[in-house]
């Protein structure tokens, strides 16, 4: 009787072990997928990412795509928003790594990030 019970416990433990192994593999795969997704989101402003941006950021990013490198003032004249508002949106896009910020003389320019890996 004791040996039967022991056998049953061993079988159950093996089953639990196998399920745990499967779970570990699933969690590792999920983590890899998330980090890959984060890398893609951070590196490229493709059209599908553009569509998933909130309205205000999408308008700013689309305008920057349309006119090329521009100052917050130039963008605000097209979008009809305050310069300070556009500046805030552009800086949000910079933090998301979709847009690059650089200085030319006294002016601060923004452009779509092109530090993309050419394949």
């Amino acid at each position, binding site marked *: 009787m004791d040996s039967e019970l022991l056998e049953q416990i061993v079988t159950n433990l093996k089953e639990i072990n196998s399920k745990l192994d499967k779970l570990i593999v699933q969690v590792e795969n999920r983590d890899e997928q998330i980090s890959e997704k984060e890398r*893609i989101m951070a*590196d*490229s*402003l*493709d*059209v*599908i*990412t*553009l*569509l998933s941006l909130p*309205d205000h950021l*999408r*308008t700013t990013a*689309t305008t920057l*795509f*349309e006119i*090329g490198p521009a100052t917050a003032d130039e963008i605000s004249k097209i979008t009809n928003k305050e310069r300070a508002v556009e500046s805030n949106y552009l800086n949000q896009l910079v933090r998301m790594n979709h847009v690059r910020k650089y200085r030319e003389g006294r002016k601060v320019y923004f452009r*779509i990030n*092109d530090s*993309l*890996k*050419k*394949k």
Partner: protein
Amino acid sequence: MTLTLAIHSSKGGTGKTSIAMNLAVAFASAGKNTCLIDLDLRGPSLHSMFEPKSHFWINDFLSGKCSIKDTLTDFKKEMNTKAHLYMSFSNPDIREIRDLVSKDRDWQASALKALMNGKRELSEKDLDVIIFDTSPGVEYESINAVAASDMVIIVHNDTNACNSCTEQLINGVYSLLDKKCGIIENMSHNNCLDIIDKKRYGVPVLSTIPCMCEIATRGKDEILVHTDPEHLFSKSIVSIKEKIEAMK
């Protein structure tokens, strides 16, 4: 200012390429310098009607291998149009199409940027109209074309499949990108040119073109706007051209 149109549809087989080619010839015949670009990179078709004379394809431009001007062939003389009629072709070689399938988001992001830059470059070439012939549905290349356009011309036919998808595209893509839209009801079985609905899904209907076997058969070898301007189809195309210009 250059007007950029994306000819798009939710489903294949609606007649996008035929409308795009005829519209391009109609604009050029009316004295507008026009450029037609085949952006259906996975199923190129423009080369089946016109012979490319450039060494570069639009694929080369999108990959950063050449300037957009290097991809153009002018068909003004051949088509006897008043203004220039440039065309840029997509590479029909299966190896190129196969290669395209493996392109990732980074490539598509740089292709979108290239398309925007190319559009600016063409505007400086004194072009009046740029037409992108796209692939159907939500393919990267076609949504890139929509993003780079001022207006989307939706070629629609009255099938259940088209009906359920077009509205989603309008709400989920064109509106989000803030694009003006117009619908062409193509291959309509109402057999009349009257526009039954002035608007569909909140978008103006520019024309209803009846289903005529003649268009399918003659359209294989002819651009009807060029060879038969008095044809009902050609008249519809000219009327669409005028409506698009009025919407600018």
